[in-house]
């Protein structure tokens, strides 16, 4: 029995046998088995697409009086057409060094890993800032990189590209902690209306609505607190107007200004 040393996944191949009479040819691999009745001494042809999964295949030729064994390898096509791209995290604060990781597995048409060194281009782009580009060569079929999150919030496109094949992920860059949190106070009937300035992080990005801002009033040993979510970029609340009361504002672990109410 004469076997090919290697077969490229999806391509045609043939197996030549010796002798005469009838026999059965088995080709057994990972997740795939071919069985064919053959005439000994003739060549068995296998059409393109017969074997697609890379790996070692065992060949058994079972005749009436004897059995022959052999093996050959099916290898990837070396033409990258699919990428498995893992990008983490999908959401992170702005201005984080090495905060984004990307890992790529380069695959052929039949999703076999291409183990030979292949250059992969990673590109992280934000519409309002510069593009970060890294070129990494795969090692055993995988390539990875790290990127910084930019100072601008927004939805970044993270693209891994090998030749014509590419895969895209989105990475949401969200504002960091509030910075310079400031409120103002105004009399509103029997109450004091406390309103924050538009709340932004240290890079000037608007803190998203729903973020909790805590207003506290301290007066004569008593305290009142309201956790108010941002709405349209600001938070506002009404608390009792008492002369000598102190109002403070905070968000998370960030403190804002204090106002002493004297009327």
């Amino acid at each position, binding site marked *: 029995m004469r076997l090919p040393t290697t077969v490229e996944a999806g391509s045609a191949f043939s197996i030549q046998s010796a002798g005469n009479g009838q026999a059965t040819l088995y080709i057994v691999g990972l997740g795939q088995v071919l069985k064919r009745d053959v005439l000994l001494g003739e060549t068995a042809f296998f059409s393109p697409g017969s074997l697609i999964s890379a790996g070692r295949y065992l060949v058994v030729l079972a005749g009436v009086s004897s059995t022959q064994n052999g093996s050959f390898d099916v290898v990837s096509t070396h033409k990258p057409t699919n990428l498995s791209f893992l990008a983490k995290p999908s*959401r*992170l604060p702005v201005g984080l060094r090495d905060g984004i990781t990307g890992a790529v597995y380069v695959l052929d048409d039949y999703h076999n890993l291409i183990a030979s060194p292949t250059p992969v281009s990673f590109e992280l782009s934000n519409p309002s800032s510069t593009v970060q580009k890294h070129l990494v060569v795969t090692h055993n079929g995988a390539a990875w990189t790290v990127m910084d999150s930019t100072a601008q919030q927004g939805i970044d496109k993270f693209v891994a590209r090998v030749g014509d094949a590419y895969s895209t992920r989105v990475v949401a860059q969200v504002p960091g902690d509030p910075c310079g949190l400031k409120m103002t106070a105004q009399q509103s009937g029997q109450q004091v209306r406390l309103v924050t300035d538009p709340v932004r992080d240290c890079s000037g990005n608007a803190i*998203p609505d*729903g*973020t909790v801002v805590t207003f506290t009033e301290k007066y004569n040993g008593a*305290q*009142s*607190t309201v956790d*108010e979510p941002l709405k349209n970029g600001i938070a506002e609340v009404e608390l009792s107007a008492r002369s000598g009361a102190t109002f403070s504002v905070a968000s998370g672990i960030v403190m804002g200004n204090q106002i002493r109410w004297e009327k």
Partner: protein
Amino acid sequence: MNNGRLFAALLGAVTVALVAIGTVWPAPSAAAYSGVGNMLRSSSTPEAAVENLGEEIRKQAWEKAYGSLANRAQFTETEFVKDLTGYYPSLLTYTTLDRFEVRPLHASANEAEMELKLHWATVVGLSVSTRDLHVVRNGDRWEPEWPIVRESIVPPQVIAVNYLRWDVIYRGSGDDWGSQDVEAPHVRIVDMHPVDRAEGVVILGELLNEDVVPAYVSVSATLLSKNQSPIATEGSFDRIDHLLLPKQVTPFLIQFHNVALSEVGSIRMTPLSALIAASADPVIEIGSEQLHPAPGATLTGQLINQSGQIVNVAHVLGTFYNKSGQVVWVADQYVDQALAPQTPVPFEIHIPEDLARNVSSQRTVVATYSFGGFQ
């Protein structure tokens, strides 16, 4: 040997006789609790009159309880029942009275003041409410007057609410394994330290949602011995606000019973966070908070629902700090009354006496639950 058999036979005979007597002539309290009798007695004294009222409330015999009141003309039976079980669905709506205590405060020939302490068995534990009753003599009977508290009813109306809400769509089951999924919220423990208490080790701390999305959170801790072998693992259970909006902070308390801090080498903290659909509504103002020093140290205040949605159950968590800003205790209270819009509801959190002297400031958060979930 014979004496022993004789004693055993005698003991058996006495037991059978006592069981028979108990069955034929049961004690009034046993009969009442088995549902075949009652513990009511003649209202010939102020105590007896209030005890009878407490017993009827325990049995939810509202008609009889209402009928026994001297001032029943001032309110309807429905108002009386609502006063006890809540005008809106709340913890008390689905509870029963476990027991009650009656304590005389003042008595004269024709009038008396009695304290009725009601111990309600709610789904989150015991809830105690106290009412001071004026009791009046009517011939040879005493009749209590019920101190009715009418909750203000919110008039029917439509309230526009435009607070943000978040929904979550996870990746589909058919997606490739490398496909992105939505990121779990990023949370951080911003304070944590263990305290040695008589009942065991207690871990106190605070957890911050530093993300821009709401998070369902919980914290668990594993105590490790000095040779790094695990001693025990516990979670914060309900001593935490499980729903954190962006940049919100919750205290947490984890209890390890029967473990001494001297046995502990290190502690492994595990904060858990998951995305959750949530609404920024309702907003609760915590007003008039006041720390009352020992003895009987408490934090009192009132909750004011600033939104349009009725909050059926409110869970108040108080974080207490010392002068240097370190957490010294976390205590909580479930409010057994629903929070109607703009209606103040009081709360009172007890602080352990020995720790109260170290408390110099506090921060309070409220976890809210509305029947029917988020709307």
